[in-house]
């Protein structure tokens, strides 16, 4: 029956538009298909895609600096690294409070490790200074406690800082949030303490420091705020507040809890030494005066950085952009080049060795071919580690091959060949290990080439060689292409074999990535290297598609 509605949509038998009923019919099919692949899809998403994505994200992520030293990062922005002068007092003051909290939370060493990738020595600077920060604060704590012993009492502080009337929820929230970022946790604001609004406006730094102390006490130490004595940093903050202009006037009009105690302290503000955090830090470690260190801190302040990527291509970040690393630190470009070159050599060797084998397999009777196929697949049943180690046994200087060569008199006993722990060893072992990946796609493509083509070519007057080269070979190219992509992509990211037999000259970029993941713990750099490797593979894949055409690749 033809569609009678020439001017409208075609309708199905029950009057609904045909398109819609078709979609409805297909939707059930699609849903079923989706349900069938759902377990694998979820598995892959959770265990593969998501970790890779988060790993790659690490290559630009740099939040640790601004999370650990939020105040310092802000005040350091003003500093001109080229002025040749150390940052001003404000920066050192902020550094003190930032670092104090980080040290209490034991996060300062992580930051030190992170910045140590960019500037050697920062790690120990942070670690050692973290232990001695109390000394800087005690200078202000002692006179206060001498003045009135009530300052030693945690509950007095608690009353003072809680104040009366409205609480400053904003300060509490921002402090908790900062703490969460610092320790990558997820705590709420229900800590049994809220700084008072009035006291916060009179003593802003003290409120900030005390709130930080309170949050830490409750969340990290799981103690009650009122029962704990405040940190030295809180005393320092109070001293700074008391010495600030206008604070005395504000205090005189204050009538909240412990107002008398506060007024007493304000009256004796001369008991505090003149604050000089810069001097204090320089006293801890004179590297705090190193302008290069501060330049590094400033350069790596932003939340995201291209520093890892620059690092991964032998460049380094400077305040003005980037520059080449010193010659003796350049390693990654060399490694990338070597990885690509060796992967190409391995791929070529696999083609040369695999092609005749695949040809024989494809042209033998089924029974014999299956038997030989088992031999090709045999390596798959042996552990990769065992195969690689076997090559070590074969190739080493006191190994089987050298022994045989010496026995045959082809090599002198004192001139044994070095065939392992270099590029040669890696290429030999990896060619052997990846060969099946070349043979299998070649074989499956060659199987589909009808032998009649060769006969036809010969009947048309072609010699065996011409028939092969002009007729058979072009038809087997898709197999070579598939095998090459497989082997090349596998080898460019190979790790175990170069690690075992590669020595120093035969290692791949993947070995360096593994080193940064497991030894130096510079995950950002590892992620950047990995991202570059991934991009290189994608670009090569794209180029291959443009030149050969990916639809010409047959895996079976």
């Amino acid at each position: 029956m033809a569609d009678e509605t020439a001017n409208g949509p075609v309708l199905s038998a029950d009057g609904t538009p045909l398109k819609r009923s078709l979609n409805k019919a297909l939707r059930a099919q699609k849903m079923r298909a989706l349900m069938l692949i759902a377990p694998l899809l979820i598995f892959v998403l959770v265990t593969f895609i998501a970790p890779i994505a988060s790993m790659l994200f690490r290559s630009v992520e740099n939040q640790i600096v601004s999370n650990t030293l939020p105040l310092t990062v802000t005040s350091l922005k003003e500093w001109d690294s080229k002025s040749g002068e150390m940052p001003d007092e404000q920066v050192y003051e902020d550094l003190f409070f930032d670092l104090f909290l980080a040290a209490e939370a034991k996060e300062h060493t992580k930051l030190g490790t992170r910045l140590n990738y960019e500037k050697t020595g920062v790690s120990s600077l942070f670690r050692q200074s973290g232990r001695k920060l109390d000394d800087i604060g005690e200078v202000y704590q002692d006179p206060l406690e001498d003045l009135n012993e009530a300052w030693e009492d945690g509950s007095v502080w608690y009353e003072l800082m809680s104040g009366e009337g409205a609480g400053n929820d904003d300060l509490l929230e921002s402090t908790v949030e900062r703490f969460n970022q610092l320790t990558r946790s997820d705590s709420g604001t229900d800590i049994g303490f809220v700084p008072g609004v009035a006291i916060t406006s009179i003593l802003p730094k003290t409120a900030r420091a005390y709130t930080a102390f309170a949050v830490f006490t409750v969340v990290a130490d799981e103690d009650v705020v009122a029962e704990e004595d405040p940190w030295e940093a809180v005393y320092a903050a109070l001293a700074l507040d008391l010495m600030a202009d206008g604070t005395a006037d504000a205090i005189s009009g204050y009538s909240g809890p412990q107002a008398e105690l506060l007024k007493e302290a304000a009256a004796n503000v001369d008991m505090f030494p003149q604050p000089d955090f810069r001097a204090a830090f320089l006293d801890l470690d004179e590297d705090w005066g190193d302008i290069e260190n501060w330049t590094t801190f400033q350069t790596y302040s932003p939340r995201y950085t291209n520093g890892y990527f620059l690092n991964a291509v032998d460049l380094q970040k400077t305040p003005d952009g980037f520059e080449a690393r010193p010659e003796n630190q350049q390693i990654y470009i060399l490694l990338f080049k070597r990885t690509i070159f060796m992967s190409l050599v391995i791929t070529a060797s696999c083609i040369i060795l695999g092609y005749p084998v695949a040809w024989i397999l494809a042209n033998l009777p089924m029974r014999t071919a299956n038997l030989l196929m088992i031999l090709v697949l045999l390596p798959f049943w042996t552990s990769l580690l065992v195969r690689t180690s076997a090559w070590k046994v074969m190739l080493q200087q006191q190994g089987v091959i050298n022994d045989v060569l010496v026995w045959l008199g082809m090599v002198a006993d004192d001139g044994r060949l070095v065939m392992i722990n270099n590029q040669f060893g890696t290429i030999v072992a990896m060619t052997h290990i990846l060969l099946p990946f070349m043979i299998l796609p070649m074989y499956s493509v060659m199987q589909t080439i009808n032998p009649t083509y060769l006969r036809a070519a010969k009947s048309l007057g072609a010699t065996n060689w011409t028939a092969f080269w002009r007729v058979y070979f072009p038809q087997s190219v898709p197999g070579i292409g598939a095998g090459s992509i497989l082997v090349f992509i596998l080898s460019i990211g190979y790790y175990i074999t170069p690690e075992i037999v590669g020595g120093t000259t035969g290692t791949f970029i993947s070995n360096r990535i593994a080193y940064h993941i497991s030894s130096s713990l510079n995950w950002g750099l590892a992620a950047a290297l990995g991202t570059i490797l991934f991009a290189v593979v994608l670009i090569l894949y794209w180029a291959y598609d443009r030149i050969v055409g990916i639809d010409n690749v047959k895996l079976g």
Partner: protein
Amino acid sequence: MADSSGNDAFVEFERVQKSYDGESLVVKDLNLTMPKGEFLTMLGPSGSGKTTCLMMLAGFETATHGDIRLGGTSINNIPPHKRGIGMVFQNYALFPHMTIAENLSFPLEVRKIGKSDREEKVKRALDMVEMGAFGGRRPAQLSGGQQQRIALARALVFEPELVLMDEPLGALDKQLREKMQFEITDLAHRLGITVVYVTHDQTEALTMSDRVAVFDDGRIQQLAPPDQLYEEPENSFVAQFIGENNTLEGTIKEIKGGLAVVQLDDGGLIDCTPVNVSQVGERTRVSIRPERVEFNKDRMQEGAHTLKAEVLEFIYMGDIFRTRLRVAGNDEFIVKTRNAPDQVRLKPGEQIEIGWLPQDCRALDAA
């Protein structure tokens, strides 16, 4: 066409044998001579050895014993590419990675023929099969019939004197096949080339060939022009294999004056032409073509032998009527009659008398 004498023999098989496993012979003692310009078809069921013979001629198989000669010289030890024999394969074997023009140009390139010559020959060959506009396409873009033509053009483009065809029309539908049958024979005769054609389709063999060699069991059962093959089969196999055939089993009663009297198994006696029977008492299989059987008394020819028959089935097939009869205990006796205005349409159950001339009725071996 008469059997060719040895002098103008172009292709010769002499006592050729072929075995693949050393235990059984696929081709047993093959002797065949072909004059130049002949269109010879090797016909036979699968496994009869016809393709093996073709492959030996092409050079893809070597003869286990015997001599194969082309133009008087033995080619047993000449590799296929030096034999200069054109070949059309069953599945065409057009090179999928080359265009049509490149496919045709290939045999010329390997013969080191200059570019302009090559282009001209390719063009001429394409025009010859009326595919001139398709030079730039790939084989996969052509239909089966078009690929067939290209395969033919490629086998002919280097002007071989001998062309072998291995069931070239097997993959085509009926109509196209009939058209191509005509085109191939026409082309072969026009170009004066010698063709060895292998098929298992007897209609194809009969319509196309000058001579047909019927193969069975590794031997040529009969080598004859189509009409002779159909009308004068030399043994039961050929009679059965070529065309439709009615058989009646019996025993030779006597042979005299070029006629044999056969006693059928139900006791009836009929006169036959003896072919490969010689002794009285020998078992025989009498063969009669369905269209030579007559049941209309008015048309029954003088001297026709008659038998009683019962109509079992009447099938209307358009141009002909096909009637199945029970004759002398054989339920599969077929009679074909032309659909003419005055033709009788028999009804199942009718008792009739059928008859035929003794020369249409051949007493063959009982095998």
